[in-house]
């Protein structure tokens, strides 16, 4: 297990270098240098502060040197300061000379996006699992056909359109749910329980949307996994020795069918993080997606590069955790790698 972990960690190094290289090169796609007006930089900025930025990002040096210096900085987790939002630190909080703490932009946004994704994953599992199992057990019969149609529509439905429709239906015409932001006005004066309820109330729609759009893939996956497992010899053996059908299905088959789900969740992380852009901008939720979208519109390079790098690093971390979880859950993998 330990050697497997070390090997996986070792393979992450070239990937991280590749990710940083791509994030870095994006800054150089812009015409001219990043402080020029062609690149969408605020034209009112004085020549002096532009010069300061050029020095900070070493724009007067060759590209290779710039990359090296940037890599050195981000290896210390220093992602610089935002151009657009009052010089806020991009990644983590900093103390200035007077001891005032300014919070990092990613530090504030990441927990919100993670919360939404974790809650919607729970929703997905709670619905997709039974759907997939029912579908597999009634293969090619009515329930399976109905679920399959649902799955195909789920794949095809544009998340942002569903968001708009639900927002209109539940928020605008019925006033059941709040349609933007994270808190109600003045909610900070409420006791914390009410604050939590208020936030969850605001998150209901975003979670519902990302849950509903992610549902289809997982339930199809559970269905196919179950069908695969149910046709294997050991299931026939279990039936032949007279085990009740429920034990066969839920104890013997389901457990093995669910294993690959761990990997699927690991692989779906970049999609979830990327998918947060549209949902968060529709519902005005200050998470990673909205932060990135605003940064793109403002050409806020330090924020763009920071989020690309950190978002990708999180994906790698997610995949690593998924693989470790798989090895932990499946003795075949575990024994295979430790021998």
């Amino acid at each position: 297990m330990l050697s497997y972990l070390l090997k996986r960690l070792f393979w992450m190094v070239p990937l991280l270098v590749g990710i940083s290289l791509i994030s870095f090169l994006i800054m150089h796609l812009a015409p001219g240098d990043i402080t020029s007006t062609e690149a969408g930089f605020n034209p009112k900025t004085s020549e002096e502060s532009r010069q300061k930025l050029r020095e900070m990002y070493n724009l007067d040096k060759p590209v290779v040197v710039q990359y090296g210096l940037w890599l050195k900085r981000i290896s210390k987790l220093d992602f610089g300061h935002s151009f657009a939002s009052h010089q806020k630190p991009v990644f983590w909080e900093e103390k200035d000379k007077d001891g005032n703490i300014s919070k990092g932009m990613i530090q504030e946004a990441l927990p919100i996006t993670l919360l939404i994704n974790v809650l919607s994953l729970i929703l997905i599992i709670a619905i997709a699992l039974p759907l997939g199992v029912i579908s597999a057990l009634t293969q090619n019969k009515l329930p399976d056909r109905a679920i399959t149609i649902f799955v195909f529509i789920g794949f095809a439905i544009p998340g942002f359109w569903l968001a708009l429709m639900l927002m209109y239906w539940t928020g605008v015409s019925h006033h059941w749910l709040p349609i933007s932001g994270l808190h109600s006005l003045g909610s900070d004066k409420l006791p914390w329980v009410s604050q939590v309820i208020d936030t969850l109330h605001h998150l209901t729609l975003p979670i519902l949307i990302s849950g509903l759009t992610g549902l289809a893939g997982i339930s199809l996956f559970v269905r196919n996994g179950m069908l695969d497992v149910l046709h294997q010899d050991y299931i026939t053996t279990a039936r032949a020795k007279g085990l009740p059908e429920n034990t066969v299905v839920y104890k013997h088959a389901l457990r093995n069918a669910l294993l690959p789900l761990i990997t699927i969740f690991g692989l779906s992380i970049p999609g979830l993080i990327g998918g947060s852009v549209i949902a968060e901008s529709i519902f005005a939720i200050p998470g990673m997606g909205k932060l990135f979208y605003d940064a793109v519109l403002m050409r806020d390079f330090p924020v763009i590069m920071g989020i690309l790098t950190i978002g990708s690093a999180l994906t790698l971390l997610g995949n690593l955790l998924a693989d470790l979880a798989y090895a932990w859950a499946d003795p075949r993998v575990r024994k295979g790698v430790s021998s």
Partner: protein
Amino acid sequence: MRNIFRNPLAVAGLCIISAILLMAIFAPFIAPYDPDAIHVKTILLAPSAEHIMGTDGLGRDVWSRMLFGARISLLVGIVAVGIATIIGIFLGAIAGFYRGWVDTVIMRLVDVMLSIPTFFLILAVIAFLTPSIWNIMIVIGLTSWMGVTRLVRAEFLSLRNREFVLASQTLGAKDYRLIFKHLLPNSLTPIIVSSVLGVASAVLVESGLSFLGLGVQAPQASWGNILTDGKEYIEFAWWLSLFPGIAILITVLGYNLLGEGLRDALDPRTSKN
């Protein structure tokens, strides 16, 4: 081939896609109005016999705009997937054929690309280019070739040492001949399936980008930006938001059905049971 027409999914998908393609191609003849003509007198009319999908905030006929929008969505989807497929075949073929360090480098590049949240990458690149449909096609293409690369590589690896390939190689066939005459034709099935499914996701990405205002720019109509316009009027003009969404849904559904149907029909393993 005959299997395809026996597969209900594939047939349904094919019908949907052909219908939409025909509507897109003949848009100038079907559209009752000029899609870009602004009329003050017909602002925000509900669907009626004259304007079957109503009119938008500038008095333009939504049905006409939807027809011309179909051209954009399909064009972007198909060209983007074309670009991705060509890159994928090229890189996958080299990796699977030559193996060794070339394979390692290409597969690491795939891993890197797969770990960057795709939509972030697309947004970041689009932001620095002028948003036009050509740039969108190129950017979607350049960020979605990884799946095809893996597929082609896997097929090549499994075919590379089969007798017919080795026989041809022994007879002195050049590498490009082995690749294009023997290996590629035998790996076409998964490539076709993944391209068809790829169009579905490219259509979704394009509409998402246009919805965010970073895709196809006004006055050119696309389903995504009709929806963005509609967002402003959602409280009193539901038709502006409803129809583009349904159009995207049906198109994506069509490509997904065709893709899954083709997979079932062309893959001997699944068509047997």
